[in-house]
């Protein structure tokens, strides 16, 4: 089998992967870097992010304030040492990206502009109109083109990590254009392949967000952390699930129920003011807003639509000029995908699965329990987002932890010997497995029905509000799907750009991720942030101020353990939004 060898290998070419690749080259220009992605990097889902990236730069802001907002927003499940490192490096990374050409929006005097965002006391969200992720991704991608040591393997699907002697030493990947299975050795591997929102049927996520990186690490024995925390973004378009950015609310949008009433005031989120008030009402944290929607809907006060219950996002009072200047993409999306002009009409929205706070367990350098394996971005869980991520922290997280993982991996790789030849046998095993279990598979089951059944089970059992019965039902259904998956059959047995093979492999990853989410959700018998259990409605800091860690086992149920959260300066307190509190 053909093989190549690099020093550091990135799985995934989105914001975190590209930032890590640059960090490796900057740390040690002599190292060869491989960026292996199942899509061309400019297609990565980072590009769909809209709102902004947080970094404390205003004179009235402080690192402590950013840290406190993040930690309280995360319901105190965040590792505070990681958050402290994160908020400190945030402004520097954002300025570095500006130096690399990112077109941040500006104040009239030429300095960076910031906008308020959900859950943040002070304006600290940098933005590039409302296509921040798009501009960040393209700035990063175009910058990587100037580093000769970075080699790209575009449209290569990684199927397995190569592990020997307790060290990760490379990957096996399929070159999609030809179907050839390739071995890519590396002295360090950084997984930056994004989250797994496609375990749910209704999500802002692109088709490619299938949790492949999480599954890779999971199969290599690395635990997945805090998987039960799935964020529902409060404002997604019905039917498509397309994201309407939080910036629409930050600029002053209102959420109205069927009576035209700003219902968030009934949910301890403050009193309605005509202008947006930070950390209040529509600028509250995402989990509380999504939960408020569910309650409104149960009370029969949501708006009925052909696609289920929705509420209205009203930005008409902002005026056409402001909308076209600050949130033009929102208008474009509404016109195109909802046939609604937000200048004149209200936008129908409902909560939609958006982000996974959980992921591969890493430390604050991005290292996992497996030597030589690092992770950064949405696929990783450091954990700085806790039980609920604040908007605009994720884009910054890509930069900060992408860079940290890159630097750590570069140092590690420089000290390693060449990968061992014994791994070729593992790679050949993998090639055989791919052929017999997938490429040649001709069982009676089909990918699409299995995927849809799993997604429906997840929505029913692991939605915004969960209970033991619903979760157990979902576990049973997903186990059933997994069992039938063994008898999968393909229409396409060819090798050349076989996208059906890709969807089967992605379904395999999705099943792993879904199982991890359900098992973690069952084990955490409390409600915190985005994980709400109607059978355990209270937050339990005595037992559960801890991260869940789920380990894969070959037989039977995976095992779930807990490890305590790192608390440095901020003891757990009450999450207060919209009213004055003594400790805010």
């Amino acid at each position, binding site marked *: 089998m053909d093989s190549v060898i690099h020093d550091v290998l990135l799985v995934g070419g989105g914001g975190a992967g590209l930032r890590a690749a640059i960090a490796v080259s900057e740390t040690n220009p002599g190292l060869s870097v491989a960026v292996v992605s199942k899509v061309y990097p400019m297609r990565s889902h980072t590009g*769909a992010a809209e709102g902004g990236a947080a970094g404390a730069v205003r004179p009235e802001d402080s690192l402590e304030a950013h840290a406190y907002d993040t930690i309280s927003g995360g319901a105190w499940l965040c590792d505070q040492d990681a958050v402290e490192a994160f908020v400190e490096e945030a402004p520097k990374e954002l300025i570095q990206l500006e*130096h*690399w050409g990112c077109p941040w929006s500006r104040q009239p005097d030429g300095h960076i502009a910031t906008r308020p965002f959900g859950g943040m006391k002070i304006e600290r969200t940098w933005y590039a109109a409302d296509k921040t992720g798009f501009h960040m991704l393209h700035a990063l991608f175009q910058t990587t*083109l100037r580093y000769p040591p970075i080699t790209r393997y575009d449209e290569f699907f990684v199927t397995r990590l190569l592990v020997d002697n307790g060290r990760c030493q490379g990957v096996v990947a399929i070159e999609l254009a030809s179907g050839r299975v390739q071995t890519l050795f590396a002295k360090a591997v950084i997984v930056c392949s994004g989250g797994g929102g496609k375990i749910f049927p209704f999500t802002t996520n692109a088709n490619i967000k299938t949790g492949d990186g999480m599954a890779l690490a999971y199969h290599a024995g690395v635990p997945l952390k805090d998987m039960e925390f799935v964020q529902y973004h409060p404002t997604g378009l019905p039917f498509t699930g397309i994201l309407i950015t939080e910036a629409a609310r930050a600029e002053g949008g209102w959420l109205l129920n069927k009576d035209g009433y700003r219902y968030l005031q009934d949910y301890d989120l403050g009193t309605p003011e005509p202008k947006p008030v930070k950390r209040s009402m529509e600028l509250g944290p995402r989990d509380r807003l999504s939960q408020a929607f569910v309650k409104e809907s149960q009370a029969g006060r949501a708006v009925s639509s052909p696609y289920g219950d929705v509420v209205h996002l009203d930005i008409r009072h902002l005026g056409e000029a402001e909308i076209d200047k600050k949130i033009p993409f929102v208008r474009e999306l509404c016109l*195109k995908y909802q046939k609604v002009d937000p200048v004149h009409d209200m936008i129908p929205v409902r909560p939609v699965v958006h982000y996974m706070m959980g992921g591969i367990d890493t430390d604050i350098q991005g290292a996992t329990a497996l030597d030589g394996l690092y992770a950064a971005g949405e696929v990783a869980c450091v954990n700085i987002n806790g039980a609920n991520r604040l908007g605009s922290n994720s884009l910054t997280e890509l930069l900060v932890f992408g860079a940290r993982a890159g630097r750590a991996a570069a140092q590690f790789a420089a000290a390693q010997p060449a990968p061992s030849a014994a791994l070729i046998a593992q790679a050949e095993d993998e090639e055989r497995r791919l052929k017999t279990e997938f490429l040649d598979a001709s069982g009676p089951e089909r990918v699409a029905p299995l995927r849809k059944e799993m997604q429906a089970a997840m929505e029913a059992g692991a939605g915004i509000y969960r209970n033991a019965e619903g979760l157990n039902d979902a576990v049973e259904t997903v186990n059933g799907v997994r069992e039938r998956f063994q008898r999968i059959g393909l229409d396409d047995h060819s090798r050349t*750009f076989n996208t059906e093979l890709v969807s089967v492999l992605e379904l395999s990853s999705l099943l792993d991720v879904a199982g991890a989410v359900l098992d973690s959700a069952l084990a955490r018998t409390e409600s915190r942030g985005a994980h709400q259990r109607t059978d355990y409605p209270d937050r339990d800091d005595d037992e559960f101020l801890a991260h869940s860690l789920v380990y894969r086992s070959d037989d039977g149920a995976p095992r779930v353990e807990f490890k305590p959260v790192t608390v440095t300066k901020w003891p757990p307190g009450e999450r207060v939004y919209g009213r004055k509190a003594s400790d805010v």
Partner: protein
Amino acid sequence: MSETLTVPETVILEVFRYRPEVESEPTFDSFEVPFHPEWMILDALNYIKDDLDGSLSYRWACRMGVCGSCGMLANGQPVLTCATYLESLLPGPIRIEPLEGFPVIRDLVGDIGDFMNKLSDVKPWLIRDEEKPVEDGEYLQTPSQLADYKQYSMCINCMLCYSACPVYRLEPEFIGPAAIALAQRYNLDSRDEGAEERMDVLSQHDGIWGCTLVGECTEVCPKGVDPAGAIQRYKVSATMDYFKSLLMPRSSS
């Protein structure tokens, strides 16, 4: 909208197929898919793949017009399939083909490697004589300076412009609309100092001078980048630079 227009139950898609392991020439497969007014072409393709023929290969990801993966020809027009309603192509049959100008690997998937190389060639990054350290903060840029290049930074690399450009088809060496627009994006960025470096690449015969201003690229661009405008502006500035260097050889450009 006329009252006699009835909403059909189904619509036919004629889809380009190319299976190099099975055939040496492409064919067309006909599929009947349900019609929904809110469906885009992409939804119809997904229906085909999920329910009718799992072997149909095509690219897609974001389904919201920002990743640039899903460019294809619909009835001969280059479009983003995630942003084109089936309704706009009624009554059908709707012909779906891969973008022109690129060799077809399989079904609706073309190889864009040529574009990726050209993208690197135009040096699409911020070039400065001296980098300011991060500690010193951001380069100042007024909103007006940002507006100078903003439009050209909106390119999603969907390559509909390459598909529309007859020059690219007839002369594949041509650098092409998106690459030149991206070069302009950096040339016009007030923080950039690399215009001269890019000029060497772009003022070749295959660079801006390959363009004969057909203008189709701007017509099909889904993001309003106006690559044709970018190229013509560049021609004007390149010509002026040339004359300046002739007339005033001693002044630094």
